[in-house]
């Protein structure tokens, strides 16, 4: 195991909206080692993007951190000033957003937007920055890079733009790349290309990646470690093998039942998870998944379960696991 790169402890983030406090993150703890690829999986509103944004100090208005700590690469992120954060952003940690169509400024050329970040974080002069930008465009697989440098975002396709976003993100060889649903807005064929590119670049540059997605297929291929989020909490966390072959949380099990597998027998029926996601404005007192859970117990409705360690890397928060342990220890006694 390498050095710890990211250590998020008991993080709480709330959005103070006119309608009330929305607890977007409720006691989230995630740890990740250098060189790892961590997948954060969950449905819309589960808090996966907010987790990533808080790591970069990018929580949008009116949200703010209300508790917990974030350590990244030796920095205590939540204690840092905006100026200190700026030195890290785009440099040690960078991010690729979901929608490449809107993530690039429409009124500046591609070249301008890549060079901007190079000039900001390195001592390179304009010519060197230009060369580096062309090099980056080549690296992310864009043909005719010199020509692209002069083009505007609207002149490129979605896949190309996402490649440009990756080039911007990688410009200063960051320690950590956060990919916030990088392929959701793209065609399936392009998706595969982009993911392949990211893995290839990971090998070349040697960075870590946090992959945020609702697509279990993506994390299965890419990630060593997976955190499953639901209702602002990490409900289960473990290695890819543990999550896929030994899911212990009812939500994770539900997720896995709802996706098709190549190994399936012809007529296996996909089972959707019934119900709707939690209303984060009025979150339930107990387990957020309880109202949709088929194995829901009375206790689930009123109290949040503690984490149960299942292996050195695998833990999950579910009363069923607590119950098992409870019974096992009860028998032992």
């Amino acid at each position, binding site marked *: 195991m390498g050095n710890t790169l990211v250590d998020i402890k008991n993080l709480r983030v709330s959005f103070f909206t006119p309608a009330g406090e929305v607890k977007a993150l409720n006691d989230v703890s995630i740890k990740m080692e250098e060189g790892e690829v961590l997948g954060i999986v969950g449905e819309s509103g589960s808090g996966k993007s907010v987790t990533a944004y808080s790591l970069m100090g990018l929580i949008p208005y009116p949200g703010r951190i209300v508790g917990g700590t974030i350590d990244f690469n030796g920095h205590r992120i939540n204690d840092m000033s905006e100026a200190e954060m700026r030195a890290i952003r785009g440099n040690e940690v960078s991010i690729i957003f979901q929608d490449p169509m809107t993530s690039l400024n429409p009124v500046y050329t591609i070249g301008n937007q890549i060079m901007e970040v190079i000039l900001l974080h390195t001592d390179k002069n304009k010519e060197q920055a230009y060369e580096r930008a062309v090099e980056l465009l080549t690296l992310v697989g864009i043909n005719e890079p010199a020509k692209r440098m002069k083009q505007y975002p609207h002149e490129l396709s979605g896949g190309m733009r996402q490649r440009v976003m990756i080039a911007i993100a990688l410009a200063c060889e960051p320690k950590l790349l956060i990919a916030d649903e990088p392929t959701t807005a793209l065609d399936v064929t392009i998706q595969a290309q982009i993911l392949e590119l990211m893995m290839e670049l990971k090998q070349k540059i040697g960075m870590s990646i946090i992959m945020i997605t609702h697509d279990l297929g993506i994390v299965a291929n890419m990630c060593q470690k997976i955190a499953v989020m639901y209702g602002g909490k990490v409900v289960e966390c473990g290695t890819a093998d543990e999550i896929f072959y030994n899911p212990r949380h009812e939500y994770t099990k539900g997720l896995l039942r709802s996706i098709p597998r190549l190994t399936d027998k012809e007529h296996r029926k996909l089972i959707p998870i019934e119900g709707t996601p939690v209303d984060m404005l009025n979150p339930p007192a107990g387990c957020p998944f*309880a*109202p949709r859970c088929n*194995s829901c*117990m*009375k*206790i689930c*409705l009123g109290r949040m379960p503690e984490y149960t360690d299942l292996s050195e890397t695998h833990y999950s928060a579910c009363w069923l696991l607590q119950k098992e342990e*409870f019974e096992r220890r009860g028998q032992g*006694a």
Partner: protein
Amino acid sequence: MTKEKNPLSLQLDVSDFLPADSEEKQSLVVMRKSVSFWRDGMRRFKRNKIAMVSFAVIIIIMIFAFIGPVIYPYSYEQQIRGSENLAPMEYSEQELELMAQGQSVFPHFLGTDSLGRDIMIRLMMGSRVSLLVGIVASALVLLIGSLYGAIAGYFGGKVDLVMMRIVDIIYTVPDILIIILLMVTLKYPLENLANNVPGFSWINTIGVGLICIFIVFALLYWVGMARIVRSQILTLKEQEFVTAAKALGASHGRIIRKHLLTNCMGALIVTTTLQIPSSIFTESFLSFIGIGVAAPMPSLGSMASQAISGITSYPHRLLAPAIMISLIILSFNLIGDGLRDAFDPKLKD
């Protein structure tokens, strides 16, 4: 397994681990009530304090302008001799004499002008003219504009092309200039019509000036509305929910009523409301430069214009219409903003 010996004990009870029934689960799911577009919009509008205050102000001004003159003892064209240039609440010598004789004389709240006309009643009539212009002109704009825009939007293709080219041209015409030109020239034919052709004498009761204003507003101001309605219809036609409705077998009538119109309504209401202050603005401008409503009918603009010569001695004569016009425009603007926020957040500019 006994609960007393439970090592994990956090006041846990075996019964806690019994399966929960669906009712218990449901009690956790807080569903927001779904409300209709109208009720939702009205609720939001009513919650908007600024808009509600503005609404109240407009109602008060309407009472002032339409009911005020009925109970007010002076008339707007009445020139009280000997009572010229009175300050607010001042009485002329004659009036003081009358009062000494025991007669009651109604006070001139805002004084009188250089012709001995009571300014309060003129302010009422001026506000009436402004409100009338604003509301009637906007109604005309709504009628013509939405009809034109809807036709262009529905038919599309060549019809749309020709109709919108016409709109483009009218749109590039500088409106105020044409309005001035029309007002200058329409006056004579209209007066002629009113005085010489039987059946048109009603023009005189409304006033040639007002008719002119309505005609030119109706001729020029509808293009903005037409553009908005057309673009709304065009985009709505293409939207997924319309396709979905079609796929579900909804009739054209139902699609138009249920999907196109309801979704247009917000924009229509907002644009019409915001058209009112803009028409009032233009009318006061025209009256100020001396080509709006014809004397002796007062308008807030013409009152302000007449007051300029005496600006040093009688600033209140100017301030009264000035404050009134600003208040009316401000209130309508705020109501319009409130409606836009409530019904059509997309329109927010």
